């Protein structure tokens, strides 16, 4: 394959990545860009070229040991629920944008600590980036079967250089779109996720190709490998201390998954919602497992096909090439390129933020910034970050160009892990131990790094670069106990694990000792408390921060405007005032406002600079440790109190709602009662008015003819009867509906009851010449209140008699039954009931509107009383419309009822 063709392919591929990142940035709210799977896949930035190429090399050289690098993260994944949640919670709470910020803030916005962490990260990551560039360069050579690199040629002819520059452009463009470094970079993350898919896919292709195309499956490979290679060495933990070595490497990778800047960037800074963690917990380990399925088989295949003469790191490229499948090598190359790009971009992004926010700004620009205008500041900060990106990549390139080609990918990767692991004590313990101090963190970190240099870097470089091996093998001045690879006689660990053991031991000891011996100042303790009690702090927000002193809102506002711009500053302050209901005219700033402002600035310039900026305008008075602890304690109590209060108020709310409903019901009842009383009053007044009027007429006119006198007297008599009936009915109804009238249920004959009711009205019927037709078919035994039912039947019959025509009237009574009910039907040939009244007639005081001229006697309660009685029998009374032929009332009584 020609160089040019490959370069064109690379350029095309980078173009696609640019487009993808650009699209995602433009559609940063889209469902796809924010899908939890994208988050999980972006974590796979962990799998760099080291994984892509180095694992196979490692597997070919020393067997299954490569797996340790993946076991750590897989073990860590379930822990995320607890540990990562806390880290994320804290980071989001304080607008933290990098691990340096995290550690520096935990120890009281400590400027020098932030700087040290940044330098440690740079020391760890720059060689790692070099490693990636080395991988590109070497794989480029292999695929084009040419020699590149800068030996003999100038930098300008080295393709790797250009690729590095393009990566720098990519990272600086998409990484610094927002000034606030704690904001998400959707474009970069989406392209990283895309690359994660590609690299896995291409790696699986080559795995399948080797295992199933070149060999007859994994069993065949194993069979062949077991005869030709020393499999014993390659598939088991081979030395006596192999187990311990495994253990240490697992610890190393476990720490790396939390501490590597690129992992912190993808898992913490770019985190947006809970679903992401839930998905990542299973998807990320699954991804790692898939990535490692074929590693060992490719390694065996490579050893079987190519022998151990060639660089085993590149078996994945060399195997297809040796069979003439160049296209496959190109795919593999692109997979590797993806791994490189995502690692380099995310790492430089994270590092550049750290460099700008924790080193360059707090140590150089902070003064200039406080004097500049906001637009200028934003520009400068972004420029600093962009330049940092380029500087980092160029540094890495320079380091790469001086690499000894003998150094394997795997060993440089481990150096990187080893250095970054030094952050572990101050990072992890700081989250759970409030006493951890900045002094302890600093000394621990420095001492740990020194041990790493002594026990690993120094011997490694003297051996590999300067070919001077006596330091490594015999120790300085040939003192046995100081042998760098076997300090104090610990000789059973491999160099990396040996170094890890001693460095972490020293680091941790320093951290603990200095933290205990010298207490941190109040500020550190304040943040210590806030980090340890992150759950409470998340609820308390700014109130968890103890601050005493004098500062003016206006001064702080000016700073905010300078660093986050007029609009954002105004908006933020509005939100703050609303949250704490602070009077907008309050000129003095309190601790909450100070803390709030610091958080805002942290996102833009890092925690250390934020502290310095606020410190410039605020006269801070020291706070005693007791005050810090007291306020936190008080706040905790306040929270638990407010929780109980909240619970109580919820209960109260429920009660209130219940009361409201009951009240509503009572109101309705009251209204009904009022209506009832109104109607009763009206009904009572009518006969009284009539009586009064008649009396007056009688009294006034002494000459009234006797027949008219008699008529008035008759009227009075009639009206008093009406009053009596009315009052009795009201009392009846009241007794029935209040339940004071007890029903007397006895087994009795329904037909006898009906018969008795008929006999009661017979005389009126006879007078009106109305025929009542009733044929009792059976005895119809059931349990009911005999007297009450007579009242019902009598009432229904009286109504019928009222409405039928004299002489032509006819009332038919019949009883039918089904399995559950008796149906007593009273049908007449009167004037019937209009459709709209069918329901109303059973309401109290209904009197048909069609009564017209002669008002029949009746209180209007009759049918209402019937309904009450039938209801108490668990039956039903209703009218059927038969407007033409008269009315029909049905009384439905159950065979059995509960009463």
């Amino acid at each position, binding site marked *: 394959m020609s160089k040019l063709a490959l370069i064109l392919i690379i350029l095309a591929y980078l173009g696609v990545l640019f487009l993808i990142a650009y699209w995602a940035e433009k559609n940063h709210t889209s469902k796809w860009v924010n899908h939890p799977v994208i988050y999980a896949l972006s974590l796979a930035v962990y799998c760099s070229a080291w994984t892509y190429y180095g694992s196979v090399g490692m597997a070919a050289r020393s067997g299954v040991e490569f797996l340790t690098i993946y076991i750590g993260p897989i073990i860590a994944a379930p822990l995320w629920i607890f540990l990562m949640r806390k880290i994320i919670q804290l980071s989001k709470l304080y607008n933290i944008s990098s691990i340096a910020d995290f550690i520096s803030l935990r120890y009281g916005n400590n400027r020098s600590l932030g700087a040290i962490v940044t330098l440690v990260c740079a020391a760890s990551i720059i060689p790692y980036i070099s490693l990636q560039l080395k991988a590109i360069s070497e794989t480029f050579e292999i695929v084009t079967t040419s020699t590149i690199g800068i030996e003999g040629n100038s930098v300008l002819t080295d393709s790797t250089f250009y690729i590095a520059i393009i990566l720098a452009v990519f990272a600086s463009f998409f990484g610094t779109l927002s000034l606030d470094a704690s904001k998400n970079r959707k474009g970069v993350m989406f392209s990283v996720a895309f690359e994660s898919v590609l690299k896995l896919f291409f790696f699986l292709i080559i795995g399948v190709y080797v295992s199933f195309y070149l060999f007859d499956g994994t069993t065949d490979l194993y069979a062949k490998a077991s005869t030709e290679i020393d499999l014993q060495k390659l598939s088991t933990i081979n030395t006596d201390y192999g187990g311990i070595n495994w253990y240490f490497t697992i610890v190393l990778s476990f720490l790396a998954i939390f501490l590597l800047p690129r992992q912190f960037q993808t898992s913490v800074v770019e985190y947006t919602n809970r679903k992401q963690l839930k998905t990542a917990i299973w998807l990320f380990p699954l991804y790692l497992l898939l990535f490692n399925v074929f590693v060992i088989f490719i390694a065996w295949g490579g050893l079987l096909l190519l022998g151990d003469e060639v660089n085993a790191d590149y078996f994945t490229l060399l195997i297809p090439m040796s069979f003439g499948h160049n296209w496959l090598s190109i795919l593999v190359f692109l997979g590797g390129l993806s791994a490189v790009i995502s690692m380099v971009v995310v790492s430089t992004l994270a590092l550049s933020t750290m460099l700008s926010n924790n080193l360059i700004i707090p140590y150089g620009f902070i003064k200039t910034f406080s004097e500049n205008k906001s637009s200028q500041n934003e520009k400068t900060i972004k420029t600093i970050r962009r330049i940092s990106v380029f500087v980092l990549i160029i540094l890495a390139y320079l380091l790469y160009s001086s690499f000894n080609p003998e150094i394997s990918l795997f060993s440089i990767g481990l150096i990187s892990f080893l250095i970054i692991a030094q952050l572990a004590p101050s990072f992890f313990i700081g989250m759970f131990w409030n006493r951890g101090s900045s002094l302890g963190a600093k000394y621990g970190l420095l001492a740990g790094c020194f041990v790493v240099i002594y026990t690993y870097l120094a011997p490694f470089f003297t051996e590999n670069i300067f070919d001077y091996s006596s330091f490594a093998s015999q120790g300085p001045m040939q003192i046995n106990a100081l042998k760098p690879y076997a300090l104090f006689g610990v000789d059973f660990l491999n160099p990396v694990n040996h170094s890890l053991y001693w460095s972490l031991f020293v680091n941790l000891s320093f951290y603990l000792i200095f933290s205990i011996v010298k207490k941190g100042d109040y500020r550190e303790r304040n943040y210590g408390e806030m980090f340890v009690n992150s759950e409470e702090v998340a609820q308390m927000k700014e109130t968890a921060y103890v601050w005493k002193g004098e500062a003016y809102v206006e001064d702080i506002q000016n700073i905010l405007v300078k660093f986050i711009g007029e609009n954002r500053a105004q908006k933020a302050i509005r939100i703050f005032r609303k949250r704490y209901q602070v009077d907008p005219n309050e000129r003095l700033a309190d601790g909450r406002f100070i803390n709030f402002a610091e958080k805002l600035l942290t996102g833009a310039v890092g925690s250390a600079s934020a502290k310095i900026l606020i410190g410039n305008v605020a006269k801070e008075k020291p706070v005693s440790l007791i005050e810090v602890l007291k306020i936190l304690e008080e706040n905790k109590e306040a929270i638990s109190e407010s929780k109980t209060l909240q619970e109580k108020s919820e209960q109260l709310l429920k009660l209130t709602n219940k009361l409201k409903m009951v009240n509503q019901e009572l109101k309705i009842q009251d209204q009904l009662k009022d209506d009832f009383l109104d109607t009763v*009053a*009206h009904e009572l*007044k*009518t*006969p*009284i*008015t*009539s*009586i*009064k*009027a*008649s009396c*007056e*007429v009688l009294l*006034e*006119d002494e000459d009234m003819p006797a027949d*008219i006198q008699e*008529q*008035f007297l008759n*009227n009075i008599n*009639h*009206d008093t009867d009406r009053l009596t009936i009315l009052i009795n009915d009201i009392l009846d109804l009241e007794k029935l509906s209040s339940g004071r009238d007890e029903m007397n249920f006895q087994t009795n004959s329904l037909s006898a009851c009906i018969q008795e009711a008929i006999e009661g009205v017979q005389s009126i019927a006879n007078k009106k010449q109305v025929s009542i037709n009733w044929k009792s078919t059976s005895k119809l035994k059931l349990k009911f209140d005999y007297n009450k039912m007579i009242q019902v039947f009598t009432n229904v019959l009286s109504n019928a008699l009222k409405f039928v025509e004299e002489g032509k009237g006819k009332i038919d009574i019949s009883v039918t039954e089904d399995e559950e009910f008796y149906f007593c039907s009273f049908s007449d040939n009167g004037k019937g009931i209009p459709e709209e009244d069918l329901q109303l007639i059973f309401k109290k005081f209904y009197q048909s*509107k*069609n*009564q*017209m*001229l*002669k*008002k029949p006697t009746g209180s209007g309660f009759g049918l209402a009383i019937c309904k009450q009685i039938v209801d108490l029998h668990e039956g039903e009374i209703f009218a059927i419309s038969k407007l033409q032929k008269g009315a029909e009332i049905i009384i439905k009584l159950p065979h059995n009822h509960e009463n």
Partner: protein
Amino acid sequence: MKKILIVDDEPNIIMALEYALKKKSYLVYIARDGDEAIRLADENLPDLVVLDIMMPKVDGYEVLRHLKSESPIKDSIKVVFISAKNKEDDIEQGLSLGADNYLTKPFSIKKLLNEIETQLEN
């Protein structure tokens, strides 16, 4: 002779009223519901209407509305409500709709006769 229309759905009340009014030599018309009241008023053009409010179908308010805004004698006719509704609100409503007076049931016939006289003099 002044013409008076009595509107009530209660025959015994009507009977007493009719007797008393005739005695005072008014010409008396009788309606037992709202429909009939409107019809009789339009036919006979009474000077005054004694009007019950709570009646089936067309109630007293509706009759009043007709009398005071649609009938041929809308400008001269006097209306006196007689009703069992005796709450302040009811009385106010009746008067605000244009009734000339409002007597609550049970009322004194003497008072009603005086009222009728006063109204007819105005």
